[in-house]
């Protein structure tokens, strides 16, 4: 853990130094990777540390993104207000969904989270008076923070870098805390932890809600980054792609999820330059990861199977 944390801190510092010298396009992609990376790390909290594969994680991301889009375009709410409300709403959604989903285990958990994710997608798609339906909400302005305008690419990148670093540190502290260790124990054997007197349900529920909160945080940033929010941000494919990022990076490593997110973001954008067949290639990536790198990048680097 120590060495990996050092490497990650070094990577953050390196990014901060080179950012002003990067051309606009790679910088935009890096910003995108950071935001999606927060989402992937939040899912890792569930999948890697608690053993709960959620198939509806885009829901909390979407709630956060839609909250910002609606509040900025209709009410001109500022950055802090948007962040607070966006994260709170995502947390609330996760708190409600968690009550239903945590009852189930394994495959049932997977299918219930999928269906609950579809509820949010359905609302985004059909509740036209609030979400503008299929057209999405455009014209989300870049935020201002303490009088500092985050409109151009470089300041906004720094804002996202700091956000990602804060999210990573918070989640990192969470997983090494007694609570996080309890989660890992539950992933290993639920009945053993139960017998040891741990409140398994509460541990899983708390992990579910916290994970939703971080996903909502990523969603608020996404709305600012993209300037546009649509049902596509909430759909099943987004949830599964996040799952792929975590699997690609290596579940249970946090920073691996960030790497996985970065890889997918860059791959998509470079492939899209040359061909329209991105989905075909992405599908191949899914299958390839499962066949050839079941423990992800970080797992493969360690050179041993878990």
């Amino acid at each position, binding site marked *: 853990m120590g060495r990996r944390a050092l490497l990650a801190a070094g990577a953050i510092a390196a990014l901060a130094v080179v950012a002003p010298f990067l051309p606009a396009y790679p910088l935009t992609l890096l910003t995108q990777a950071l935001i999606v990376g927060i989402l992937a790390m939040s899912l890792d909290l569930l999948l890697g540390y608690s053993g709960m594969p959620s198939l509806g994680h885009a829901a909390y991301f979407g709630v956060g993104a839609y909250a910002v889009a609606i509040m900025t375009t209709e009410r001109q709410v500022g950055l802090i207000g948007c962040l607070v409300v966006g994260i709170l709403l995502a947390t609330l959604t996760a708190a409600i969904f968690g009550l239903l989903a945590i009852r189930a285990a394994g495959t049932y958990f997977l299918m219930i989270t999928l269906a609950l994710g579809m509820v949010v997608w359905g609302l985004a798609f*059909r509740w036209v008076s609030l979400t503008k339906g299929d057209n999405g909400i455009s014209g989300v302005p870049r935020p201002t923070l303490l009088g500092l305008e985050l409109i151009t690419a470089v300041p906004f990148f720094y804002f996202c870098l700091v956000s990602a670093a804060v999210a990573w540190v918070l989640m990192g502290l969470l997983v090494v805390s007694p609570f996080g260790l309890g989660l890992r124990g539950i992933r290993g054997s639920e009945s053993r932890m139960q017998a040891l007197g741990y409140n398994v349900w509460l541990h899983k529920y708390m992990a579910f809600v916290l994970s939703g909160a971080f996903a909502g945080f990523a969603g608020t940033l996404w709305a600012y980054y993209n300037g546009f929010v649509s049902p596509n941000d909430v759909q099943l494919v987004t949830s599964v792609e996040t799952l*792929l990022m975590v699997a690609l990076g290596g579940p249970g490593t946090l920073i691996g999820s960030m790497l996985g997110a970065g890889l997918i973001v860059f791959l998509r954008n470079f492939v899209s330059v040359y061909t329209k067949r991105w989905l075909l290639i992405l599908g191949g990536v899914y299958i390839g990861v499962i066949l050839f790198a079941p423990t992800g990048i970080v797992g493969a680097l360690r050179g041993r199977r878990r």
Partner: protein
Amino acid sequence: MSTEFWIAQAFNGISYGALLFLLASGLSLIFGVMRIVNLAHGSYFMLGGYVGLTVALRTTSFTLACLAGAVAIALVGMGMERFFLRRLRGEVLGQVLMTIGFALIFQDLALLIWGGDPYTVPIPKLLSGTVRAAGAVFPIYRIFIVAVAFVVGVALWLALDRTRAGAMIRAAVDDAEMAGGVGINVPLISLGVFALGAALAALGGVIGGGFLGVYPGADFEVLPYAFVVVIVGGLGSLPGAVAGSLLVGLLDNFGKALFPELSYFTLFAPMAIILAIRPTGLFGRF
């Protein structure tokens, strides 16, 4: 709201439920035997529709279209099971990523082959038109869908309940390891069930293509419906698939007609309530 409205909506719901049954019974069976969440199941529906469309346009035979769609997609399903999914037994995350990978590839291939325009599978004259009864108008094609689902349901029930192969499948559903221990060839059963499930979904795709149409995105549109059916009914249960299909078909239709903005809520909220009371679904045992 007149009586005709209720009768017409109820009938639409039942016929949509019948289509969902074709889709979901296969998903449920596959899960029952292999414990696999197949996210490519909606793709079988869409691909079946496309293959059926091509055959129907070339041969002008609807029967041939149904057959060709079912057989072609059964082969696709068998290939997936034999070469990719069999090795992932028990690995939930691996199965999810693998099947979604296939779903994306199928989606892109379908776009490459059939393009982005929506089509309707041409239906025989015999099945077009309507009948009047009890003051309401019923499209014959929707009656046909209900009839097909009924026949398939009864055939599945007889096959599972009354035949030797059915007994072997039920044994594999209950306990694959024990079934293997008493000499049942579980891998062969898995292959067969996967082929059957894929064929049923494809049949649903061809028949559904006659009134919903075949278009890009149909795969991920029907998938959640199939999931809700098996969640509500209970995984691996045939009666559950019947009850779940009817319930989802009716809820979806009345939801869309009565509360258009909240139509997904009217579908998923009852699911949540059922789950809160019975976490394994109405007929589930696990």
